[in-house]
């Protein structure tokens, strides 16, 4: 069901799936992603179905870390300001001479706890899934838990327990406790039996969902990156 995404990306000589492609893969494996539309370069944005606040993100093979080039605008109140952001981004791409595939306009997740779910295909152990607390926790403190796939429900719960920052998920410092079942479900969708990493072992090399925002009503994969596995011959 996702094979066309990988086939097309490889045919286009890509080594990384663009954000919409990565999110289609996530959605196919049962992860929730924000509602959004892709605005083709120069096309009129059809944003009627989306409710603000919105985010606009540049889709360019030359800017896989899009925020580095100013390719991300957040907190756009309505369709009109999102449309304006789309036009600005098109201008930005021209100015920086970046190839532009389009602009992704998405609903923003309600505020919540930011987590990171990652995956890598280890040369020895095969697919390995990682859970981390987002932002500084993962980057500076390396607060992560790894498991070999496939994981089960107990593994997923133990991964949450293992984070030093786990109390932050459970209501420390006056926060509202998050619904851990949503984190477990996301971990199983990525690293469980029949999950993304196990099923796509030959297609992908690395996966990053950063952030997965877990709020009261949802757990949304707000940004995602999938690095394709190297292949001897494309489309094999």
């Amino acid at each position, binding site marked *: 069901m996702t094979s066309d995404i990988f086939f097309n990306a490889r045919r286009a000589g890509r080594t990384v799936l663009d954000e919409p492609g990565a999110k289609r893969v996530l959605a196919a494996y049962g992860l929730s992603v924000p509602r959004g539309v892709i605005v083709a370069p120069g096309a009129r944005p059809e944003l009627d179905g989306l409710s603000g606040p919105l985010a606009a993100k540049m889709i360019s093979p030359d800017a896989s870390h899009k925020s580095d080039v100013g390719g991300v605008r957040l907190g756009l109140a309505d369709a009109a300001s999102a449309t304006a952001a789309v036009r600005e981004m098109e201008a930005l791409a021209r100015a920086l001479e970046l190839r532009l595939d389009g602009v992704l306009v998405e609903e923003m997740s309600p505020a919540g706890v930011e987590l990171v779910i990652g995956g890598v295909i*280890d*040369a*020895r*152990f*095969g697919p*390995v899934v*990682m859970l981390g607390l987002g932002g500084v926790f993962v980057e500076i403190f390396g607060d*992560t*838990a*790894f*498991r*070999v796939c496939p*994981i089960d429900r*107990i*593994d997923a719960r*133990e*991964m949450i327990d*293992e984070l030093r920052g786990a109390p932050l998920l459970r209501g420390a410092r006056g926060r509202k406790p998050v619904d851990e079942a949503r984190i477990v479900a996301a971990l199983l969708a990525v690293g469980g039996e029949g999950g993304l990493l196990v099923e796509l072992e030959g297609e992908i090399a690395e996966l990053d969902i950063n952030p997965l925002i877990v709020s009261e009503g949802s757990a949304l994969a707000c940004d995602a990156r999938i690095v394709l596995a190297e292949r001897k011959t494309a489309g094999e």
Partner: protein
Amino acid sequence: MSDAYARYGPIFRPRVLAIVGASASGVTPGNEFIRHSRAMGFDGRLVPIHPSAATIEGLPVARSFAEVGETVDFAYIAVAAQRVPDVIASAAGRVRFAQVMSSGFGEVAQGRALETRLAEAARGAGVRVIGPNCLGVYSPRGRMSFIGGATGEAGSVGVITQSGGLGVDIILRGERRGLRYSGLVTLGNSVDVGPAELVEYFLADPDTRVIGIYAEDIKDGRAFFRVLREARGAKPVVVLLGGQTRQGRLAAASHTGSLASGAEIWRGLARQTGVAIVCSLDEFLDVLLAFQTLVPHRRRPTRRCVLFGNGGGTSVLAADAFGRRGLEVAPMPSPAIDALAALGLPPGTSIVNPIDAPAYTLRHDEGRIAERILDIALQHGEPDAVVMHINLPVFIGSADQRVDVLGNLVDAAMRVRAKHPGQAHFALVLRSDGAEASERRRRDFRNNAVRQGIPVYDEMTNAADALAGVAFFEAYLAARSA
């Protein structure tokens, strides 16, 4: 599972054992293998293979595998590396398992191509190869050994090691600590038979109770994970992991010819399978000894420990060591404290936990006081584990030698443990100053106690490491059986 027991059985219980590379005049590793196996009482057929010698080690020689006249269960090959692929090719249809002890393969840059040739020769010949770059197999029940000085006594600890030299340490030092092996295989570069397959064997082997693995690089990591995952804690497994730091990995690269996997992945795998990971030889042996002697609690993981013995500072440091390993040394419930108080022990005795009883307290009633204290701790203290520690030289050097207080103390420990079976783990720490008199007594006590199912450790830190390993496995069992 019993499939694996039959499939790999010839490695441990060969009926026909061939040696390639033994000398008619000198003492090569091949000769060592013959001599040590005969000393162990090997009672199958032992055939040296040699192109010209008439006899080797007094045994009739065959010129080739073909000349043996029957299938060789296990061939020990110790010839120059370049010759090995041809020897393996000549084993086609005639040899089940061949252990290649020769070095000069993938562990050195110029041997990589030769290792590939060896692997191809093995596949082509249909011979399962163990090694190369290893030392041998130690199998007390099969009565074979690649080293001298081992007890040869059969036990319940199965070991797989990717380093041969460390295998020697594990056998000799381990046996001195009371470990007894069901088998030990040195795997070296693991060009064919890998750790996962031998884990399957030891899981299926009815004589094996605990499995120990020294791992630098598990090439078949996926299969290794799957086997352990499917076992679901059927037997405890302890992994001594090498190459977990950058410099350790570099050493491992020159050692087994490949890189070790990340520490984070191993930590995750441990949680998923209940495998206890340790990082020193001593800790490895200490945890194995605990699993050899103690029966894991399946529903109530070990947490609450009662420590009892002489030495105030020792008790404090021990409480710290246990705390660092996640083991609780907390005051006992009041019925226990009341009962201990009622014994009227001399001042200077602390009865809360740790129970710190100076030597003059332990001398009370010629040492039999220990039995009453331990009785109370077990009956009313609700411990998951009790550790009794004795500083041997304090008693050995005492001016009062009218009675064998030490003997009485250790006897008390054994009697109490027998009286409360299955209730709490019981471990003994016998602390020595290294003087011959202390060492001798410790050796005697250790042999006796371990035989009766009490692990004996040198220091409280060793006991803490060992019980932490047991607790980790028990926590896995409890989480998965809920």
